[in-house]
């Protein structure tokens, strides 16, 4: 119980720190939102002072002291009101995020879980069949794929499978003519569109799990209790799964919670390349458009989801490891 309370307290503290950092970071960025908007406009020709005034009137300029802004910000967060986006003026931030979130959640969430599960299983296999091709292939292959830059893999897949072979769509999360709905055709369409981004993220993240699990597993396989289980004639599969993997997965699990942030980060590049309307793409737009409110909301959301994932992992850890339960 104490363990879970401790985790909860840590969660709350980190959340506060993340929220505060989130407040400060965008304010450190140079140039105002109006500058960003004008930069965008000026690509279509010189912008006059009159236009700047109109833009500033639209976007408003952050006013009040920093502390006042901070108080307002905290109040807004408590009421889940993130204001109006600058880059997508006059769209409310919450609407934009709500629109993008499902895509990323499904794409990143499913891919990460799939990658963790597949990678971990391959890692178990690699350690168990150490020194054979079942070890070498996932270990070396996986770590090679892991070193592919996200965007590069995306570009290659997009180019060859999308534009050259015409096997997969090249843009978006669904067909241009489909109105998103909850029928079977939409689902198939969505899966079809998610295939390339998902493949990219899967192949580039798999290696890490394979390696992590393999190393943990090899270490565990050298433990006395595994030797003892073998001395007791317990079948290999049971030893591998219930004795070795069951213990080896614990450190890997912590890594899982931590890695989630990295995967969301990686999705920025992937979504960018595939024109996938998720949080990553939105964040990129927010950053380039100097869109404080949107940036803050997304940043906060990513941090909170990583925190929540970590909390869940911690709870899962507590369930999986009887030693933490006391």
């Amino acid at each position, binding site marked *: 119980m104490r363990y879970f309370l401790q985790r909860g307290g*840590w969660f709350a*503290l*980190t959340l506060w*720190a*993340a929220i505060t*950092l989130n407040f400060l*970071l*965008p304010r*450190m*960025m*140079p140039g105002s939102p109006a500058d960003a908007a004008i930069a965008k406009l000026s690509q279509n020709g010189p912008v006059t002072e009159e236009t700047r005034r109109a833009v500033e009137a639209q976007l408003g300029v952050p006013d009040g002291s920093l502390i006042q802004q901070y108080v307002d910000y905290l109040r807004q967060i408590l009421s889940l009101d993130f204001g109006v986006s600058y880059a997508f003026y006059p769209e409310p931030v919450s609407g934009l995020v709500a629109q993008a979130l499902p895509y990323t959640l499904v794409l990143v969430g499913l891919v990460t879980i799939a990658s963790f599960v597949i990678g971990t299983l391959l890692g178990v296999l690699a*350690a*168990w*069949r*150490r*020194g*054979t091709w079942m*070890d070498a292939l996932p270990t*070396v292959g996986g*770590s*090679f794929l*892991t*070193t*592919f*830059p*996200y*965007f*590069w*893999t995306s*570009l*290659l897949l997009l*180019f060859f499978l999308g*534009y050259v072979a015409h096997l997969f769509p090249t843009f978006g999360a669904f067909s241009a003519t489909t109105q998103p709905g909850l029928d079977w055709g939409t689902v198939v369409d969505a899966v079809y569109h998610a295939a390339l981004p998902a493949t990219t993220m899967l192949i580039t993240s798999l290696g890490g799990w394979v390696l992590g699990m393999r*190393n943990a597993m*090899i*270490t565990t*396989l*050298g433990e006395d209790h595994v030797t003892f289980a073998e001395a007791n004639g317990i079948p*290999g599969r049971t030893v591998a799964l219930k004795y070795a993997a069951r213990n080896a997965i614990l450190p890997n699990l912590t890594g899982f919670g*931590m890695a989630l*942030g*990295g995967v*969301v*980060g*990686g999705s*920025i*590049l992937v979504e*960018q390349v595939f024109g996938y309307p998720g949080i990553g793409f939105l*964040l*990129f737009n927010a*950053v*380039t458009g100097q869109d404080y409110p949107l*940036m803050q909301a*997304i*940043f906060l959301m*990513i*941090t909170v989801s*990583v*925190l929540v994932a*970590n909390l869940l992992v911690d709870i899962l850890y507590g369930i999986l490891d009887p030693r933490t339960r006391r």
Partner: protein
Amino acid sequence: MSAPETAPRPLPPALAGLRGGLRTIWTHRKARIGLIVLGLFVVLAVLAPWIAPYDPKDNSFGRSLAGSAQHWLGTTAAGEDVLSQLIHGARISLLVGFGAGGISTIISVVIGLCWGYVRGLPGEVINFVVNLFLVIPGLPLMIVVATYLSDGGISVIIAVIAITGWAWGARVLRSQTASLRGRDFVEAARFSGERAPRIIFREILPNMTSLIAGGFFGAATAAILAEAGLEYLGLGDSTIVSWGTMLYWAQNSNALLTGQWALLFAPGLCIALLATSLTLINFGIDGISNPRLREGSTGR
């Protein structure tokens, strides 16, 4: 060191350990391949001006030329020789990899070791900060910081990557420090009148060389990939010649459309190869930190 040198001493222990470590890495087949590949890239980088057929910024050639005897990998949309850029690009990637990897390793060593050594409130505070850095998603943070510092060139990229990339290493080093801290020789050093900084950095640190080296290569790998990502997003310094900027320009000038896809393919492959070489070396280093991970089969 106050010990006077009267007799010639054998190799200092740290160096001897290093030599032994290198030997262990070398015996590891995968690590050996990694070392060779890394060595090739280092040679390429160091000798770039002599190896590269042209100046990487010389744009006096035809634009978007296909591969030919003069330009094996063709030219860019600006009329620069792709092969020369590729060779020179190794310099930046190695610089960023080793620079950012080195700095973030130093940060993680200092923080990780102090964190593992101190007890009580300071430890809790460090714990909190490190965990904060761990949960804050790295790339978005990097993007924000890079945008903030966007006109400082490659050193800013290095700094950004280092600042955002040290936390995991610190965590790993902390647990090792905490376990070494319980070893008698640390207690013994205290009994010898040693002060904390010396115990941390002279007694404990050298015993984690392999772990630190592993962390360094890991951080370097991440840094190389991060640099490429930032440059690709146009958040870096697009005037330098690196594999990341090559990809940026390739994407920008539609290398895929102009058939210049060597321009897109080669830098990515180089990044992957360089990063892989570091990962492979880490296989060997893992074997030092954890002898069970040395090559071999379980006989199953």
